């Protein structure tokens, strides 16, 4: 060893010698055991945000935040099926600050993101974007081959189920946040396609899921389903384009529309309905498609919702959608559709609450959390969370999924319930240290 090496070694030794150890913070797991934590759920669990699943979103997923907090109280390694980059399957959106609007990241997709990473498994985070309750259980084996987000990490695509993969890991603790897609896929299609999962099926499936996960004595937390109709995907467009945003300034326009719809109005009356279409100078409700009426259209009501997707179709509105022709079903949630979604959500939540109690699990009121965000606001460490699209800090650019900062708030909601249920001392996190929006 020459002098220089000896000198470097001496410096290294001195630096090592001066490293202070901090006393442990007082923590306890209570009656829970966090050694092996498994999360099941959908896109929110996976860390999907800004229309895509990608590395920094996964790092900010609420299960990843929870797992980090569990480290202090006996938690173990938490493995997530990481994407290879920040763009995933290529649909990521970014905020163009100068233009003040979300844009596509526009980066070529790395096809390797579609390759299987099953050999790196098993994975603790089994969140699958798009998954519904009944896709979790045996009988839905095909789903693990059909959903590209699941196929890439499924142990055996076409054979695996999320529940099977969870149980096989013999978890000591689990979280389960399932049910949003059971109404959301229908809602996001404006009720024009797909269907709401029957609550009776939901009950059977979730009963089986929780029964199997708790069979070996595992503790866990079950989160309920938020009211999806309050998220920006369904609430933002009405702030830009009110239901009665059809503004007629010329008497000729009014006359032409009333004349044009006269034959239909006659038919409507003949069918015994009073729901005729009428136009006047000034603001008028838009004409929307309603497939539940035999004549297929009517004027919009004040509490019905335009979908965010309509923002890409403003040209069509300028060229007669909503006046000369109805705005298509896929862009609108009608009152009947909203009622169905809310009614199913309430049923799911009653089922989840009963099951949580039956299996003696923590029950996490994520619905209440997002309700508070949407109707009032929540402030934490200087960040104000509201339901407002883009600027509300809660929802990402896709208008559906939450930001990393909001995921921290969700994690805190889990932590509160888990601590209350099991007497554990998981510490809440500050949203300040999680990501907000990403810019173009």
């Amino acid at each position, binding site marked *: 060893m020459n002098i220089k090496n000896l000198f470097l070694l001496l*410096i290294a030794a*001195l*630096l090592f*010698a*001066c*490293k*202070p*150890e*901090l*006393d442990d*913070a007082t*923590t306890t797991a209570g009656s829970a055991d966090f050694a092996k934590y498994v999360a099941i759920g959908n896109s929110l669990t996976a860390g999907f945000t800004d229309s895509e699943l*990608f590395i*920094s979103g996964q790092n900010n997923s609420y299960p990843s935040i929870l797992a*980090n*907090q569990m*480290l*202090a109280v006996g938690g173990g390694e938490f493995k997530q099926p990481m994407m290879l980059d*920040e*763009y995933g399957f290529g649909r*990521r959106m*970014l*905020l*163009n*600050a*100068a*233009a003040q609007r979300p844009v596509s*990241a526009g*980066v070529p997709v790395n096809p390797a993101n579609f390759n299987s990473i099953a050999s790196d498994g098993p994975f603790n985070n089994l969140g699958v974007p798009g998954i519904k309750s009944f896709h979790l259980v045996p009988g839905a084996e095909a789903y693990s081959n059909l959903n590209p987000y699941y196929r890439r990490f499924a142990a055996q695509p076409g054979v695996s189920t999320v529940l099977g993969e969870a149980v096989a890991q013999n978890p000591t603790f689990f979280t389960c946040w399932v049910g949003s897609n059971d109404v959301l896929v229908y809602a996001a299609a404006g009720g024009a396609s797909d269907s709401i999962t029957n609550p009776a099926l939901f009950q059977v499936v979730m009963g089986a899921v929780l029964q199997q996960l708790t069979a070996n004595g595992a503790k866990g937390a079950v989160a309920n389903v938020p009211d999806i109709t309050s998220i920006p995907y369904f609430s933002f467009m009405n702030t830009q384009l009110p239901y009665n945003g059809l503004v007629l300034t010329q008497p000729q326009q009014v006359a032409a529309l009333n004349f044009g719809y006269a034959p239909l109005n006659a038919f409507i009356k003949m069918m015994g309905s009073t729901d005729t279409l009428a136009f006047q100078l000034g603001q008028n409700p838009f004409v929307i498609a309603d497939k539940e009426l035999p004549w297929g259209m009517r004027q919009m009501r004040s509490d019905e919702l335009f979908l965010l997707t309509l923002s890409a179709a403003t040209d069509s509105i300028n060229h007669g959608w909503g006046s000369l022709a109805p705005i298509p079903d896929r862009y609108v949630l009608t009152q009947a559709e909203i009622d169905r979604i809310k009614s199913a959500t309430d049923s799911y939540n009653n089922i989840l609450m009963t099951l949580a109690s039956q299996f003696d699990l923590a029950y996490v009121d994520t619905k209440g959390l997002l309700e508070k965000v949407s109707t009032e606001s929540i402030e934490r*460490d*200087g960040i104000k969370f509201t339901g407002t699209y883009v600027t509300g800090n809660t929802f990402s650019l896709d208008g559906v999924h939450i930001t990393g900062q909001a995921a921290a708030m969700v994690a805190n909601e889990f932590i509160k319930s888990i601590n209350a249920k099991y007497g554990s001392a998981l*510490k*809440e*996190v*500050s949203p*300040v*240290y999680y*990501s*907000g929006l*990403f*810019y*173009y």
Partner: protein
Amino acid sequence: MRRFSILILLISITAGMLYAGGYQVRLQGQRQTGMGLIGTSLRGDASSLFYNPAGLSSINGKWSFSAGFSPIFNKVGFRLEGDPNTVYNDNPVGTPFSFYGSTMITKKLGFGIGAYTPYGSSAVWGDDWIGASLVQDLSLKAIFIQPTLSYKFGDVFSIGAGFVIASGTVELNRAVPYNSPAVEGQANLTGDAMEYGYNVGIMVTPGDKWSFGLNYRSEIIMSVEDGEAKFTLPTSIQPIIPVENKFSADLPLPANLDFGVSYQATEKLLLAIEANYVFWEVYDSLKFTFEEQPDLLNSSNPRLYSNSLIGRIGAEYKFSDIVTGRLGMYYDPTPTNEDYFTPETPSLTTLGISAGLSIYPIENFAIDISYLHLETKQASKSYLPANFKGDYKSRTIIPGVGLTYNF
């Protein structure tokens, strides 16, 4: 052999010692460092120039030279409130140095000049650590050059005054909350400043045994004008925040009032105590003013430092004509405000323990070594404007080496 084992014992008592709170560094002499950074009442070599210029006219010999180097090995651990993980900064080895030369122009009038580094701070936390929006890394360096005159009125009373030319540089990197998938928003601020101050002292030595010293070093406000600000930003932010900008900021270097007493207990044993009052209150806030987009970028960051009083005790024992040993310790309460504590200068209340040794291979020529160990208690601190709360703990090891030659 007995002497040797005492030294080993001294070195193994690594209970604590450090540079003074805030970003002040008092490692301006190996002898003083060995005695718990006591120097105001000491005479003997050119390093008095910093600790008390009045001592310059009481040096044995016509010429005195002293040079020293004290590398700082420091680690700060931080644990965010609620976070199970402790993060450590990755500070480079600090490199304070001092060089002094002095001469007696007449029997009563001494002149000297010194270059030393009384302020400095280096904190490297990393680009992606949890407090990145407060600081990623900070480097603060100041070099003082001080020409000094000292006059002795008889045997009892002497005075000294030095003119300080302070030259400093600062570089700060911090994250800004504008990220794209490819770009992490960052502000890089670099600047320099040159300012002036003074260092004056009185020394009173009534008889052979007692010595009293009083020293005042003026406050110096380092004003950075036309500093360079570079912003790394996502493309769509650049029309809003310019990537190249100029900034100005003031960083105060506080005044110090030191009072020390030393007592020659026996022919071989010197005992000393000292108090340093540091006028840290001047560091009220750190304000950045930008040339472009000032409404968006200007910031006033509260620091709310308080004045602090440091207490020190030290001893020097002359084992023989060849070997002199030293011990010291001090208590240095932090000047920081616990609600406005930032990781850029994580200064905690510190206990310092020191040891030192001078070897005289020939008369008047000494090889000086010192060792200072600084230990802090774990402390919970916040930076309220950013809601940044957590526990800090710091440990520092400072070995030093120097040469002194009086002739």
